[in-house]
């Protein structure tokens, strides 16, 4: 099924462990935790990650295992069951398939190879556990700190100090210059939230002061409630503080406007009322944050219903914060990689996942699980649900990854394929739920299906890229059916909004000639009618990629750039021209619209 698509010869370290059942849901959870930056680590996961590490080390000396532990086997079955909800495979066939898979696996992978793989896994998990341990220790240390303060009845005072310091930061940010007024709206919203939190904390402080007047047994109970509340507020303040810092990193000093306009323009084709903030982070990943959803989730633990309703009115518009790695702020070729993040957001916005697995939603899945005769596990209903949740998440990630790639290909045309190949594919992306080779295959096939290859240069580039894709003849029918189903949904979402081959051919080659002559590629001239129009931002990105891949030597020649230093100076100049073109084309479009 899904994992089978990786091909027996191309099994990655993780998939081997997954297939033989070593990769338990707990580890998936630990990995998940790691990949989201350990924001929500807890003691249990930390412990599990370490247990797993020891298990892998032990397994190295004793492979293949003679007896597969019940839990491990159970997890394997559960994953298979979850995956089968997408493939509609019957239970008996499923078990037969597992047995066959195991036989195959043991037949084709030598013990030596497995040990090599395990070695690299141990290194990988050592890295994770080191970081996990470090982060975990910090986390628990900070909790111990809290407890200390709570016992001293100072937790609330500490939270008050922190909220006042946050208000101070927000007031300072008010005087800063931002590319749009979205930041100002968010600052006002955060100030409102801060003042509400401050009032709550002040009343908690009063209650705290009155505890001493109560009988001892009530004192203890109330102290516990106050402790929980103080912890919640402290966590809440930390999160709102993080958002304030993101705002700070989005001011006008930090990056050219091209990135901002590109994101705003692309998303507004799908959703008109969304506001965008682009921020820089030290992280090497591109990510996005749906601000109102995050705030609502965290605030519901701190504010009462009435206050939440009022805040919801203030948050009537969706605000997305996109994080761009600091080092890449001027790298316009990454803009197409942002497409994947835009894709993920749009899939959530259009609620695509339930549409793809509509008949097999979570509750159906749990009842589906109960129908199996797993005697030993019948009593473990909670465990079943937990495993099911994790597994469902894994499948959701799989579908989201494929759907984001397809959506991005439709919105960005070949530029997404080039960007994916250059940046995502060539990085050791441990986070990808779908093997990168399979993703590349899906993307290149889609570009071919959209007929972009009738342009000779695109055809040549695809030929080069295809050498790195996987042979999907090994993928089974269910996976291919699922991909078809995803494609259908993506076509519905992008109807009338996708970038077209016609537009590509009409604009891209004109823009390439502009850049080749050191002119920013932001405008299309019509020599007959003596009129001009702003170029589509996606056309600018596609032209930039094609120039970089097929025409760059002509530009070096024009500018007499011979040495690598001279060539790199030309590259920088071209990047700034293209970045500027995105900005100019968007301003041009907006000014035209407002004069209509």
């Amino acid at each position: 099924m899904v994992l089978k698509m990786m091909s027996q010869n191309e099994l990655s370290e993780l998939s081997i462990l997954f297939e033989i059942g070593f990769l338990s849901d707990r580890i998936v959870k630990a990995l998940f935790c790691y990949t989201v930056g350990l924001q929500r680590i807890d003691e249990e996961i930390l412990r599990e990650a370490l247990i797993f590490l020891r298990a892998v080390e032990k397994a190295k000396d004793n492979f293949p295992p003679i007896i597969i532990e019940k839990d491990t086997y159970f997890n394997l079955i559960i994953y298979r069951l979850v995956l089968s909800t997408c493939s509609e495979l019957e239970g008996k066939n499923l078990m037969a398939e597992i047995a066959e898979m195991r036989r195959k696996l043991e037949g084709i992978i030598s013990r030596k190879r497995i040990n090599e793989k395990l070695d690299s896994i141990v290194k990988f998990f050592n890295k994770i556990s080191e970081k996990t341990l470090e982060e975990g220790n910090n986390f628990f240390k900070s909790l111990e700190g809290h407890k200390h303060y709570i016992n001293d009845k100072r937790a609330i005072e500490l939270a008050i100090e922190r909220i006042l310091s946050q208000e101070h930061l927000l007031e300072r940010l008010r005087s800063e210059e931002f590319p749009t007024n979205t930041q100002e709206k968010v600052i006002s919203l955060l100030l409102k939230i801060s003042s509400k939190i401050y009032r709550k904390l002040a009343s908690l402080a009063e209650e705290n002061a009155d505890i001493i007047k109560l009988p001892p047994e009530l004192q203890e109970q109330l102290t516990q409630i106050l402790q929980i509340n103080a912890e919640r507020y402290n966590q809440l303040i930390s999160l709102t503080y993080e958002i304030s810092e993101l705002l700070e990193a989005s001011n006008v000093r930090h990056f050219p406007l091209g990135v901002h306009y590109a994101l705003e323009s692309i998303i507004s084709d799908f959703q008109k009322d969304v506001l965008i903030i682009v921020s820089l982070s030290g992280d090497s990943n591109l990510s996005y944050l749906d601000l109102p959803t995050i705030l609502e989730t965290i605030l519901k633990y701190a504010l009462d219903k009435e206050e939440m309703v009022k805040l919801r009115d203030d948050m009537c518009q969706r605000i997305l914060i996109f994080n761009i790695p600091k080092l890449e702020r001027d790298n316009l070729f990454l803009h197409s990689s942002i497409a994947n993040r835009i894709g993920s957001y749009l899939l959530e916005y259009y609620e695509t996942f339930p549409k793809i697995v509509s008949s097999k939603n979570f509750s159906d899945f749990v009842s589906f699980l109960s129908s199996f005769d797993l005697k030993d596990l019948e009593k473990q209903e909670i465990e079943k649900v937990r495993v099911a949740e994790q597994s469902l998440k894994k499948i959701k990630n799989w579908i989201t990854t494929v759907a984001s790639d397809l959506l991005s290909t439709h919105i960005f045309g070949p530029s997404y394929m080039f960007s994916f190949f250059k940046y995502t594919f060539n990085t050791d992306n441990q986070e990808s739920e779908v093997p990168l080779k399979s993703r590349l295959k899906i993307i290149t096939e889609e570009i071919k299906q959209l007929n972009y290859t009738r342009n000779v240069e695109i055809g040549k580039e695809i030929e080069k890229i295809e050498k790195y894709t996987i042979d999907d003849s090994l993928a089974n029918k269910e996976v291919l059916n699922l991909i078809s189903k995803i494609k259908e949904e993506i076509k519905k979402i992008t109807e009338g909004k996708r970038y077209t081959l016609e537009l590509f051919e009409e604009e891209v080659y004109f823009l390439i000639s502009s850049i080749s002559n050191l002119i920013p590629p932001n405008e299309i001239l019509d020599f007959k009618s003596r009129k001009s129009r702003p170029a589509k931002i996606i056309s600018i990105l596609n032209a930039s990629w094609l120039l970089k891949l097929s025409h760059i030597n002509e530009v070096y020649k024009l500018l007499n750039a011979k040495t690598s230093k001279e060539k790199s100076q030309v590259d920088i100049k071209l990047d700034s021209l293209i970045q500027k073109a995105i900005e100019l084309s968007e301003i041009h479009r907006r000014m035209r619209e407002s004069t209509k």
Partner: protein
Amino acid sequence: MTVLSSKSIMDRLFHENPQKRLVITPIISHEDQIAHGSIDLRLGTEFIITKRTKYHLLDPMQENIESQIEQYQDKIYIGYKRKLVLQPRQFVLGSTLEYIKLPNDLLGYVIGRSSWGRVGLIIATATMVGPGFSGSLTLELVNLGEANLALYPGTRIAQLVLHTMDDEDRGYISKPEAKYIGAVGPEFSKIHTDKEWKLLK
């Protein structure tokens, strides 16, 4: 050597021969921006502001003058529909929104618009644009008035007047001293790269 009329400017903007073509991009409205033998230019989104607290002496003979100039100044971006407030006697480098490329047989002059001049805004001191120049024009903005001035990117702020040359120049791009070629916003001064400093040292 004549000044280009509005019609000639349009002819040059849509000239099919790229060597003869005048590039001014973007032009939001040809009808509104090209009139009376000149083209209106708009204010761009990037600015360079001097950090007065750090500034003590600008001496092109100093060592590391290039990095010092950059330290004295700060580049900022003002988005569309946002404003930059220019205080009385404040000096800021801005640029045209338009990117300009002159063919080798045209030479241009940037001049201020009278409406802005009357409220005290000076937009350029280095006004000539050489044949073959390619880039956004840096504007040296100074508020000589008594009141703060709000400057919005996209506002028509300057005019470009174009002349034909009696012979084609070899073009700005091929000159070794073409310091500001391909600039997409205001650029820090490169005065220290002038040859005469070596002679004076």
